[in-house]
């Protein structure tokens, strides 16, 4: 497929890995920031190709994972109301709150709908003037422009039945929190490609310099991730720590200025609670006072809902790169996508869910089956080219 297969070529991958082997003199711990990158790494088995001693740990960049349980309970309280049509991105539906998930609310009669674009809520609102349409606006800087657009259009069109339940978080404060932690193991980052496509990467330059950690803004295809890994190792081996852009086919340093302006009109930076991590100062967005008429937290009586996070789940450590899914005794047995116990199992982009979806909880019998079949068949020609 055009512009996909080009970034999944096994021969090129082998060359990049060979170059890593050539320059690597010691072990390195890198973190991929985005959930989408984690997903791609596990789906494609990229970590199996890396030289020994190059470890990828999984970052906090899964928007579903880091949405606090308390916010999910608020969403569920609103979604249960008979006067509400509750709209959400698909993978929020399976996230359990203290009592069930959006699927169970739907099966009990709640009107819960999956939307692909936040702007779909405007159509739903026009078609259902007697109902309150509430959109669960979560995510990082990536989803912020589209979510902001919904709030802005609702305001411009003076719609009285559209509101947003906002739980937006920002990447740079999370990276700082990770780097400042005394437990930190991460020496370099694969930066968040889609976030930087919106925001640019200027914000990362002082972080990289202050903590002497290379940050290579990376894409999501296997070769993007491998190339960015190579670039990061190169900086570490050479003792450099700067921000580099591997994903230059998509983004530049300034990012998408109209999107940034729209975000600025609708949101303001505020403290935010992160699931599994806790409150990080100035780490998210809330709706500006001018948009208060579309703020679901103000319109519906949910401010009182306070839910405490589980103390035992290790997802906080996973989100900060200190631990991996296998370090959790419940992983794949008591905690699985049907019954997630914590943040990183709830979304397909969460590290635990990605490990689970791609069978990392299963141990193939036949000794080291995963490794044994890996190297030999890399060059095996497909029996049928198949793909159009």
């Amino acid at each position, binding site marked *: 497929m055009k512009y996909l*297969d080009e970034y999944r*070529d*096994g021969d090129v*991958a*082998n060359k990049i890995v060979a170059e890593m082997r050539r320059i690597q003199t010691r072990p390195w711990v890198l973190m991929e920031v985005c959930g989408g990158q984690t997903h791609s790494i596990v789906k*494609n*088995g*990229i970590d*199996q*190709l890396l030289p020994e001693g190059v470890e990828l740990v999984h970052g906090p960049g899964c*928007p579903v994972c880091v949405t606090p349980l308390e916010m999910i*309970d608020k969403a569920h309280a609103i979604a249960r109301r008979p006067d509400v049509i509750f709209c959400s991105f*698909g*993978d929020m*539906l399976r996230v*359990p709150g*203290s009592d*069930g998930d959006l*699927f*169970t609310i*739907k099966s*009990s009669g709640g009107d819960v709908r*999956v939307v692909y674009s936040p702007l779909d809520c405007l159509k739903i609102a026009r078609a259902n003037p007697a109902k309150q349409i509430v959109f669960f606006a*979560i*995510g*990082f800087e990536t989803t912020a422009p589209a979510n902001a657009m919904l709030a802005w259009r609702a305001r411009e069109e003076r719609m009285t039945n559209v509101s947003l339940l906002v739980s937006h978080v920002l990447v740079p404060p999370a990276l700082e929190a990770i780097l400042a932690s005394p437990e930190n193991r991460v020496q370099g980052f694969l930066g968040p490609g889609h976030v930087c496509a919106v925001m640019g990467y200027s914000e990362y330059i002082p972080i990289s310099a202050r903590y002497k950690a290379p940050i290579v803004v990376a894409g999501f295809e296997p070769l993007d991730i491998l190339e960015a890994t190579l670039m990061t190792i190169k900086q570490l081996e050479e003792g450099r720590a700067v921000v580099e852009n591997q994903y230059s086919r998509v983004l530049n340093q300034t990012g998408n200025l109209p999107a940034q302006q729209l975000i600025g009109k609708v949101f303001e930076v505020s403290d935010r609670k992160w699931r599994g991590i806790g409150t990080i100062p100035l780490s998210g967005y809330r709706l500006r006072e001018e948009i208060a008429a579309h703020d679901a937290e103000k319109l519906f009586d949910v401010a*009182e*809902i*306070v*839910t*405490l*996070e589980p*103390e035992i*789940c290790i997802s906080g450590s996973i989100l900060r790169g200190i631990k991996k899914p296998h370090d959790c005794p*419940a992983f794949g*047995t*008591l905690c*699985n996508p049907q*019954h997630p*116990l914590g943040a990183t199992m709830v979304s*397909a*982009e969460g590290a635990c869910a990605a490990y*689970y*979806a791609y*069978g*990392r909880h299963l141990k*193939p*019998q*036949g000794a080291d*089956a*995963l490794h044994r079949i*890996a*190297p030999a*068949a890399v060059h*095996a020609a497909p*029996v049928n*080219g*198949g*793909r*159009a």
Partner: protein
Amino acid sequence: MLRRSTEAERKPMATPPDTTNEQQEAPEATVSPLFGSCPIPIFEHKQIVLGHGSGGKLTSDLIDKIFLPAFRNPILDKLDDQAVLTIAGARLAFTTDSFVVTPIFFPGGNIGHLAVHGTVNDLAMSGAQPMYLSAAFILEEGLPVDDLRRIVESMRSAAESAGVQFVTGDTKVVDRGKGDQVFITTTGIGVVPPGVNISADRAQPGDAILLSGYIGDHGMAIMSQREGLEFEGAIESDCASLNSLVAAMLATPSATPDFLHCLRDPTRGGAATTLNEIAKRANVGMLLREQSIPVRESVRGACEVLGLDPLYVANEGKLLAVVRADMAQAVLDQMRTHPLGKEAAIIGGVVADHPGMVLMKTEIGGTRVLDIMFGEQLPRIC
């Protein structure tokens, strides 16, 4: 409202949550300390949720916990898509299927086509020649008669091309709002030719795995229509009756006896779920090559956009075959001469390692496990 964990929420579960993943240690031993302070409840579903109909883990939960205990018998226990019955010396294949698709008209077909193809295919996957069908209609008050006429006309033409006849039926009408336009249940019966012995438990190490064409077309056609998504190049459902393709495969020239071990049509849950079912039933492993799996460019693109995996998307006119290795090329050649098998491919093989599991060599050279789908596939945020 201040919520903290209540006693009820802290209560350990009675059963381990994942029945497919056999646990070695007793669940009670690990549960109590782990959940002492966890306010996230682990809940068994008290009500039916949509995922129970997805064909994945939740569906098998229902079968294992509700249906099998009530109906258990040696024929049902095989859990094939059809029962093969020996009655008065004849081997008959017998199956039933309900159709509740929304929208009822979609690119490439409608619910009427599906109602014929689905049941014909379930019969054909035993190697049977489908003969007769029944049709039961549940109609919602207010359904335009013209819509029903179109659906029935589609059923007529689909049945004609599959060489089957409707010989009995039933009609019920429910109040407006108590159904969704039209639900159709079809039941079918067919004759299994002598010497044909096809069943999911017959896959053997060394066998080749063949796929009859592009995967994911039906699921993505429905999704694009249902969700109002527009993709470049319309995606059409692949719905088709596969009995003539199966007949062609059984007639592969210079075939050695009993070369065709398993046939399955990968409908709900997609190719990955179907292969897992075969691997578990036959207690064998499978190893696929990602590059050899045919996926139409438009379907692959749409899946990339939505964060879905075509291997878990439904098909309605494709089959997976497990064939003795020495016959694989001949069967493939034979399939490619049939209009429904032109893009057929050998996508992998059956192995003795990792029994019950399906592994895939990724394009980039890594390996991943393809597990069965656990509920509805959900579009990802970003």
